[in-house]
């Protein structure tokens, strides 16, 4: 039903600290903080001296502060974090490694910012943490809805019943949602929570 086996479905390979990096830049959302905390447990604190952490979310703020990284900055909202990330990347030099962790929607949006600065997506380290909710673009009205948890779901912009596909756009940082009952409106199965 998800129409799986689609190549554009992002894969998140998990954090691994790049020992050669001269600087580490982390953008973390919510539970994404744990991806970094787990790395510290695994490889020690040394890399934190050359690390900058951008963080958004209620939880884990104290634990991050306790790490004593070179720079820790907490954003009130995701858009504010993304703005700061953009500025950071504009001024950063080669040798800086970017790490992103949080929900798929967050990773996707942060990655979009990075791609706009000419950074190769393959060089960005990602780890998915927290909810599996998806950011979905309705292919009919083009409206984007964040935090979609059900399959199918009703487009928050145009009201069509959409099948959320694995087909992903890096440019939009969104999965594609396609009308599921176009031939026979109202014939769609009831929504089930598929992306908790």
């Amino acid at each position, binding site marked *: 039903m998800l129409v799986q086996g689609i190549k554009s479905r992002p894969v998140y390979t998990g954090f691994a600290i790049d020992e*050669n990096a001269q600087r580490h830049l982390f953008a973390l959302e919510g539970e994404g903080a744990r991806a970094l905390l787990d790395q510290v447990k695994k490889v020690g604190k040394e890399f934190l001296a050359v690390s900058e952490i951008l963080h958004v979310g209620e939880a884990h703020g104290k634990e991050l502060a306790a790490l004593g990284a070179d720079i820790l900055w907490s954003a009130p909202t995701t858009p504010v974090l993304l703005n700061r990330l953009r500025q950071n*990347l*504009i001024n950063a*030099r*080669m040798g*800086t490694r970017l790490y992103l962790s949080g929900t798929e929607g967050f990773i996707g949006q942060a990655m979009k910012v990075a791609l706009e*600065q*000419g950074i190769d997506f*393959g*060089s960005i380290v990602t780890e998915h943490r927290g909810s599996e909710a998806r950011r979905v673009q309705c292919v009919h009205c083009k409206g984007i809805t964040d935090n979609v948890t059900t399959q199918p779901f009703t487009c928050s912009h145009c009201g069509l019943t959409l099948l959320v596909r694995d087909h992903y756009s890096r440019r939009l940082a969104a999965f594609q949602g396609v009308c599921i009952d176009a031939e026979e409106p109202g014939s769609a199965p009831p929504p089930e929570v598929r992306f908790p």
Partner: protein
Amino acid sequence: MTINTEMPVHVAAITKVADSVKRFRLERVDGGVMPVFSGGAHVVVAMQDGKLLRHNPYSLMSRPGDTSAFEISVLRVESSRGGSHFLHDKISVGDTLTVSQPINLFPFDHRGRKHLFFAGGIGITPFIAMMAQMAQEGRNFELHYAMRTRSHGAYWQELAERYGPSRVKIYCDVENLFIPVDEILARQPLGTHMYVCGPAGMIDAVLGKGKALGWPRQNLHFERFLAPPTGKPFEAVLQRSGKTITVGEHQSMLEAIEAAGVDAPYLCRGGACGQCETNIVSCTGELLHNDIYLEPADKASGKKIMICVSRLKGETITLDI
């Protein structure tokens, strides 16, 4: 070869551009236009040197988009098996050669914010075309070009004039000027791509520094043209074609196979692209893997070989070809 439609060309001009470097201008025999190519592309030039049919890859250095002719620059390599000698010593204006369609195994990354070129000696050639294209497209680039002496280096004056001293830096061994690779790599904006072409030692050194300074592998690009190493002759059985051939001392397996009239796929002829990967049915002796394409595990398995550069040290190899 099957994927390449070869074009007969004649040599329209030969220009000496530096010590041991000549530029050849190649125009189509039928007067037609040349295919367009992108910066970094090469062609394979086929030349009939006596009884030997040679195929050597050369980077295109004319302006991408110029369809009137292709231009290549050839360094006369003392230790070469003869391709460069042949072009330097036996080819004159008006002679006919055959070239393949352009193949680009060294394209630049269009998404990059800045492009950094490291050239050593004749390794400058792919960058000449890339820079012409980038200048036209308004991209940000910088060239660091190392040469033995100024008279050995080709095109440095023209390039310095055309792109200015802030984009073209020249380093000369005899003047004790070497590329400060570490310093240069440390000051590049995030999103920069680095490209290196030159002698093997230089390529390894620059790539090694990039890696050590935390450059992601996605941002490191290189092109090395490995000339097929020579070695003792051996026998190759081409199982599917039902032929047995001898691979000569100065011949690669690919060249011997072609000489026997068997069509084998290739693109780079330098052990880099993977196109000529061939399965080994059996062999007696030791495989000398000279490519940079196969994974170490593949090399160790004894089941695969890149016939453009690798050889057998032994008697007979049976290939699934």
